[in-house]
């Protein structure tokens, strides 16, 4: 025996304590609270599926779910495709390439708040972007005051911030694509576009599915971008609120409806888990082929 029987548990104690107290317990408690009418003061009675029935009648819930799904649909295609193109652009080790890779990664390390504030200023009604629009002869675009445009602007910010991250993931994957496949295709007379679709894309499919899954889950959980671009309001009349924003607004503060917010959290969990399962399924099909 190289150690006493309780030694491993002493090593695990801090980590297990943190994870059990601040992730596992709150998670299980959230599931319980979802079926109660607990308020900000706690307590609450078991109310069965009342919270979920209430959701079906709650226009705010449907707006939030719709916006979160729209968000997911808006950010996933560009985040799967653009970083791949970017990775191919920075793949060749031309002079100065490290400089460019570093620069393209910079938005990833900045906080969503910093990025949100930078773009709030850029997209301001008299901001830099509208300045360019006016110079080109257009009329200023209400990026931040129209609920649809606000969502699109936030998607743009998410894509801008995520590009560098997924670029690095693709770079690592590209390094594993065998070069002779490209050469063989070239000998067969395939042009660059043809080679991209018939060699690169099939070889990278597992990575593309991974990127789609990560960006979908993160897209569905969007909070900071919308919060910052709308100045905390969730857009005009709350029309750009997302599910996480609704959870935050419903569950916190003196009037917090903890039970209902927990039910909303449970929906959020089920959707994110569903997205992950779909991904696993897609990748398994891959192996079967």
């Amino acid at each position: 025996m190289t150690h006493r029987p309780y030694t491993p548990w002493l090593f695990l104690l801090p980590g297990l304590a943190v994870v059990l107290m601040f992730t596992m317990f709150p998670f299980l408690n959230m599931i319980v609270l979802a079926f109660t009418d607990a308020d900000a003061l706690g307590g609450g009675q078991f109310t069965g599926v009342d919270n979920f029935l209430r959701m079906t009648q709650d226009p705010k819930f449907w707006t939030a779910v719709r916006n979160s799904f729209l968000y997911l649909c808006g950010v996933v295609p560009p985040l799967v495709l653009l970083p791949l193109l970017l990775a191919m652009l920075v793949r060749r080790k031309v002079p100065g390439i490290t400089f460019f890779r570093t620069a393209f990664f910079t938005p990833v390390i900045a906080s969503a708040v910093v990025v949100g504030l930078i773009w709030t200023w850029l997209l301001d009604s008299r901001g830099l972007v509208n300045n360019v629009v006016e110079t080109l002869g257009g009329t200023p675009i209400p990026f931040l005051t129209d609920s649809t445009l606000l969502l699109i602007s936030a998607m743009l910010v998410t894509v801008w911030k995520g590009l560098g991250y997924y670029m690095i993931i693709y770079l690592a994957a590209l390094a594993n694509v065998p070069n002779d496949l490209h050469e063989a295709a070239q000998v067969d007379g395939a042009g660059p576009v043809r080679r991209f679709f018939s060699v690169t894309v099939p070889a990278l499919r597992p990575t593309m599915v991974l990127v789609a899954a990560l960006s979908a889950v993160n897209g569905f959980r969007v909070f900071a971008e919308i919060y910052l671009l709308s100045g905390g309001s969730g857009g005009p009349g709350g029309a750009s609120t997302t599910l996480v924003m609704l959870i935050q607004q419903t569950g916190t503060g003196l009037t917090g409806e903890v039970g209902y917010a927990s039910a909303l959290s449970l929906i959020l969990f089920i959707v994110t888990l569903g997205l992950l399962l779909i991904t696993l399924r897609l990748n398994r099909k891959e192996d079967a082929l």
Partner: protein
Amino acid sequence: MKLLGRYVLLLGVFALTIGPFLWQLSTSLKGPGEDVYRPDFVPSDPTLANYAGVAEVVPVWTFAANSLLVALVNVVCNCLGAAMAGYALARLKFRGRRLAGLVFAASILVPFETILISLFLVMRSLGLTNTLTAVVLPGSIAALNVLLLRNAFLALPGEVEEAAIIDGANAWQRFVRIALPSVRGTLVVVALFSFMFSWDDFLWPLVVLSDPDKYTLTIGLAYLQGTFFQNQRLVAAGTIIAVAPLILLFLLLQKHFFRGVGEGALKG
């Protein structure tokens, strides 16, 4: 010719990724006499007055100190606590090891937003709401870091420790003297990303802190935007204060950042 086209594209993307930062920096350096709405990237009369000015309207240096404190504690707890747990999971044999590993793996599947409300209740019952302790605790030993370090310890050859076992070193001595120094690379990644997550975190401090004196930089900035939005120069100066330390850290240690993404240390 092809190479030239590549550089044109590279410079184009460069302008799109770095341009917004430069515009914010430029705005923060513009004096009160200059029209901030005019698209001039170079301030006509650059001044640092906005950096002093932002400290007059909100305690921005207190925010920064709070952020720094929270981030540093987060780094130390994660490096030590996650390494200890990872070491036990990888190098010690005991009953219940698989179960313990499963607990960490399962908790990765729980998105933070889903426990936001009930975590707040936990902090309230511990009497910790509106404290920096409450900001630090939930992420102080992240399950993801435990698994990253577990993998790093698993990759170490077994012989390294065998000699120490024969010499009579106990588990803690082997952990500190042999195992920890061998996973330095992963520790750097864990430290870096713990710092960054903590420094950039927004939703949790927004919910758990209510007193502006306790604010971290991210919610301090959102508060600044809400209160003094009309003075864009001050908001810009605050943004630069919040982002400059991270950019500096990134430039110094970029190799480790890229490695961290490769190892899955960053969830995006």
